[in-house]
């Protein structure tokens, strides 16, 4: 009885306040959401800005005195502002903006990393499918994986006898290992249930690769790609320092040889920023893909 009474009471009471609320709600919500967006923007951007300012200040104090070995932020701005303000100028074959140099380096990374991705995923898929191949190849991969990028350069120079393919090869050989190993692990971790579904449907190898293996192993693959792109970007700078050309790595070496320290500082920021963006792009794509493949 008491239950029924409570029910009827609430039914009587609800309609009028509900109407008033429904009219007001949107306005309040929009204002609140705007405020919340501003709040989160501030939360995300103010701390890094403040920290950056403090670091610049410390840097200025540390190297601001005359005779300092490294340039202070103000000196960098004074001497290299052309590089900072306009990344895409062309004053001659060797006097070009850092944007162009970065693009040259990115092209090399793109080719090397692209080949590494394709080969790494394919070989990783094969290795992951076969217990025997995994046992045989995994130790070899684990050893090769730890070889530093530049250690490959002499061998690749000897093989290709040209600087540009050598640099691309260094990118390839550096970034392929995490992609390959992660893909293999991802393929090994495909649930037996999915394999059974594929067997009942009689999917052939090609269909299994595209429809089951790639989506199922995608989170692993993208972890590998993300590590791989980071390594590739590390390797390109080192490789270009030695092979020359117009890349951002060679620019640093060139600037060092002609004692343009402020230019080096600017180039370092470029490299850091580009590496950050690359990592975020791969991570973002990975998140998009992983959302579809997330576990039940």
């Amino acid at each position, binding site marked *: 009885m008491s239950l029924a009474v409570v029910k009827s009471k609430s039914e009587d009471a609800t309609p009028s306040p509900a109407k008033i609320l429904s009219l007001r709600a949107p306005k309040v919500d929009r204002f609140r959401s705007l405020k919340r967006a501003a709040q989160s923007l501030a939360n995300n951007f103010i701390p890094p800005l403040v920290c950056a300012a403090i670091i610049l200040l410390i840097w200025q104090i540390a190297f601001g005195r005359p005779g300092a070995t490294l340039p202070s932020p103000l000196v960098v701005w004074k001497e290299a502002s052309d590089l900072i303000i306009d990344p895409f100028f062309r004053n001659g074959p060797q006097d070009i903006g850092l944007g162009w140099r970065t693009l040259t380096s990115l092209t090399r990374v793109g080719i090397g990393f692209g080949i590494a991705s394709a080969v790494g995923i394919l070989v990783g898929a094969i290795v992951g499918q076969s217990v025997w191949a995994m046992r045989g190849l995994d130790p070899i991969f684990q050893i090769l994986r730890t070889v530093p990028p530049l250690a490959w350069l002499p061998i690749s120079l000897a093989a290709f006898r040209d600087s540009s393919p050598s640099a691309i090869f260094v990118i390839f050989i550096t970034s392929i290992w995490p992609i390959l190993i992660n893909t293999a692990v991802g393929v090994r971790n495909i649930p037996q*249930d999915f394999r059974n579904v594929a067997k*009942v449907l009689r999917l052939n190898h090609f269909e299994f690769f595209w429809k*089951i293996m790639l*989506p199922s192993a995608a989170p692993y693959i993208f972890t590998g790609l993300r590590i791989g792109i980071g390594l590739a970007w590390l390797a390109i700078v080192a490789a270009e320092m030695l092979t020359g050309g117009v890349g951002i790595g060679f620019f640093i070496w060139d600037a060092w040889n002609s004692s343009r320290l402020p230019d080096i500082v600017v180039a370092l920021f470029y490299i850091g920023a580009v590496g950050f963006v690359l990592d975020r792009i791969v991570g973002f794509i990975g998140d998009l893909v992983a959302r579809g*493949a997330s576990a039940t």
Partner: protein
Amino acid sequence: MTAYLKLDHISKSFRRGSVENEVLRDINLTINKGEIVSMIGHSGCGKSTLLNLIAGLTPVTSGAVLLEDREVNSPGPERAVVFQNHSLLPWLTVYDNVALAVNKVFGSQKSRAERKAWIEHNLDLVQMTHAKDRRPSEISGGMKQRVGIARALAMEPKILLLDEPFGALDALTRAHLQDSVMQIHATLKNTMIMITHDVDEAVLLSDRIVMMTNGPSATIGDVAEVKLERPRHRLELVSDRDYIAARESVLKFLYERHRFVEAA
């Protein structure tokens, strides 16, 4: 009735190193077209292994599985499986999960429009049309299993193999799905083999109940016929004499004659 599926002296052993473990010994069974046969037994008796043998997912050690007098020893869509944990691909929508099966099995026989209609027909059969654009993670356990059934049915299997299909579901959802299975069987008159550990489910759904002895070296202990008219209604059956008798014989088999002895 014709012998549709024949299990002919099937044995299965698993070998781990030098130790050989016989799971199933000398299984003989004939299943007729349009029949629903349940296999029941204590856990570890090898009933899931037996289903995998019929499906072709694991090879037999000796003996043969004969479907329409032809030996089958590899998996195929004519023996579609409804897996215990649904096994839907999480990156595909409900529709695409069924479409994967339909496009593979009927890709060369049916036109695009026919396939689309066939997918929708099967989703309709399990009452899942409303959720066809959702992903498996966005629907309930019972709905996932419905889609699993739709995917299996869409392959137009000669035999539908159900591996404890409702084991992971709550009692109410399970009852709903059992009713759906009975409706589907009434419409399609298809042949089904179902693994279960639920006595009521076995009696309600099946024409025959195959009772397995305990492993190792499990075999068929007894087969109970369930002579109940279809369509069956669970409420009317509660007091039905044949129903009670069938239930009793299965229970007696499981708890008197072949009590589950905890592995010593």
